[in-house]
């Protein structure tokens, strides 16, 4: 993807050891600067007997066992094939994922880019020996060794798939059909009071992306790399939006319900939510606006203290197998990580989500943890880190 971004992150990672222009004399971890030292954890050398159970922490729709819809079940075949009894817990935001995973109750987690590095830095996940994951070889090369799933060329997980946050609206209430994110950010919307937005600090990036297109003089190059002034501009946009928001969502079922009753008629969403709403005969449509969007590229990671690592590896191998990866990609509405999955998805799915289209994938701004070292490569300013974003988000909600 972006060379500068890679470089900046590499710098952030290498700062402690080598110091990219910044010196850290005592050579120990500088815990305050948003840089991090990676704990030295071993990875599995070889696989052994499956332990008989595995505890999965996943985004809603990533580990379906048929209980939501009998047609969608890729957990039961896994259990039958491996003998690993799966228990599944879902989460609504990356922050929730990090907090839950820190309890140590889970063996494997589907982490987005704004969670993965934090889990690596805190030593909650360990490196993954990709040689032990048979299906890893098939995965799109451009998803491997990225700055959100690896450190110094060492993979910390298995890429799952990627997708974009979409703009959804009720077709009976919102006319004409919106084409741009400005329909949820611009003041004086005819749908004021019925707009919804994602309830997480990472949503600030959506406002930053909107500013990238509407206010070029702010010179935002990367929506996760904002200096204080740019962040302030994003906050102002979100404060204007707040006056028009009916409610924020992080529980995807709450959003489905709000669209069903008509309390929300337009706002940000995931494809899976649009699918569920359509399944309940709510007249909604969801698009990826032309100016691009924020999105996710997810990675399955193994807990460092997990006692069921063999089953965890078995799960990672299963979820990127052509069958399971096709099923999950279709159900959640995202591009699979395994090109072979495209032969098994319904016709047009991989075209719709531009699977394997590297240029398209570059238009999506994947969730990334904002850190003090600007991800866009600027060195003359300090960027705002995630704790500042968390505070800003509280301020936006007021």
């Amino acid at each position, binding site marked *: 993807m972006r060379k500068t971004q890679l470089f900046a992150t590499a710098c952030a990672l290498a700062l402690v050891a080598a110091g990219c222009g910044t010196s850290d004399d005592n050579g120990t971890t500088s815990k305050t600067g948003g840089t*991090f030292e990676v704990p030295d954890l071993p990875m599995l050398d070889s696989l052994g007997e499956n332990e008989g159970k595995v505890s999965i922490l996943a985004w809603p729709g990533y580990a379906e066992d048929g209980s939501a819809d009998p047609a969608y079940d890729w957990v039961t075949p896994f259990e039958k094939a491996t003998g690993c009894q799966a228990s599944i817990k879902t989460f609504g935001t990356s922050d929730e994922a990090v907090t839950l995973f*820190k309890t140590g109750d889970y063996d494997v987690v589907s982490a987005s880019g704004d969670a993965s590095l*934090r889990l690596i830095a805190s030593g909650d996940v360990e490196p993954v020996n990709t040689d032990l994951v048979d299906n890893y070889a098939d995965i799109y090369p451009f998803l491997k060794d990225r700055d959100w799933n690896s450190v110094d060329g060492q993979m910390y997980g298995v890429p799952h798939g990627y997708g974009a946050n979409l703009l959804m609206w009720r077709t009976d209430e919102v006319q004409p059909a919106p084409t741009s994110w400005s329909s949820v950010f611009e003041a004086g919307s005819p749908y004021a009071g019925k707009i919804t937005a994602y309830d997480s600090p990472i949503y600030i990036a959506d406002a930053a992306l909107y500013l990238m297109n509407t206010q070029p003089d702010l010179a935002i190059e990367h929506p996760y790399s904002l200096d204080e002034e740019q962040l302030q501009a994003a906050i102002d946009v979100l404060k204007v939006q*707040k006056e028009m928001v009916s*409610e*924020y969502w992080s529980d995807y079922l709450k959003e489905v319900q709000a669209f069903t*009753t008509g*309390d929300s008629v337009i706002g940000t969403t995931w494809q899976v939510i649009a699918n569920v709403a359509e399944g309940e005969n709510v007249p909604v449509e969801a698009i990826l606006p032309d100016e691009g969007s924020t999105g996710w590229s997810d990675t399955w990671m193994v807990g460092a203290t997990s006692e069921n690592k063999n089953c965890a590896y078995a799960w990672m191998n299963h979820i990127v197998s052509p069958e399971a990866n096709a099923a999950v990609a279709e159900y959640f509405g995202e591009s699979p990580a395994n090109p072979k999955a495209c032969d098994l998805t319904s016709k047009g799915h991989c075209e719709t989500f531009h699977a394997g289209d590297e240029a398209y994938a570059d238009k999506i701004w994947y969730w990334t943890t904002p850190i003090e070292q600007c991800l866009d490569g600027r060195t003359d300013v300090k960027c705002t880190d995630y704790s500042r974003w968390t505070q800003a988000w509280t*301020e936006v*909600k007021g």
Partner: protein
Amino acid sequence: MDPGVDRGQGLTLSATLHRHPGLRLGLLLTPPMLWLGVAYLGALGALFITSLWGQDSFTGEVQRVWTLDNFRDLFQLEVYRTITMRTLGTAALVTIVDAVVAFPIALYMAKVASPRVQRLLVIAVLMPLWASYLVKAFAWRGMLSERGLVSWLAAPFGLDTPGYGLTATIITLAYLWLPFMIIPIYAGLERLPDSLLEASSDLGARSGHTMRRVVLPMAFPALVAGSIFTFSLSMGDYIAVRIVGGTNQMLGNVVYDNVGAANNLPFAAAVATIPVVIMLVYLAAVRRTGALDNL
């Protein structure tokens, strides 16, 4: 073992306890005191200590170094003042709404209704407590929604549902905590002798006058006792506001978001001390009314 020896030891034990009333009392009080001390005061102490720690902003690990940063943020950032005032205002309004609604009901139960009706009413008042909090909150979400029951009922009068927001939160909380207000007032009014009401009327006071000069002053401590429940329960609530509160957040939500989302336990602990302090002030003020004897 020889049962005789056992018996002898049992006798010695009871004799010892009999001879030492202090020991007896100590043994009796130790478990509840431990419970109060460790589980309750200990937890409050741990909360306060945690609030003085810091956090690694990237990994979210708690750093055990003493710092006042959390409290500085809390006092310096305007947003937390706004949220505190909103929480206080909501709790106060819920309490007032409950008091206004509960008083006539309690008065009727205590002074007008026949014993049979009285019993039925007590059951009716307590009945909502048997249902889950969440069920009731979600029921209000459904009723207050667009095209919901409230909007349907209000439509003939040219009104509409208030929608999700503070009004909806106050309605929902007032509904949830109403029994906690009715029962103390009812108990207080029950203790009010009928002879006082008769004496007042014999001396020529009309019922309105009797209400103002006799009933209200005597029921006031009970009213305040009820307000302790409604006020403190509203202060700490974060679920109802998530369900019907729209974009509003209260102190409980800030705590929840800092534990669940930001994983900033020290700051969450600092925020959690605000309601504790407010309740301490409130209880100190309330003590003067004698309401604590009415609990």
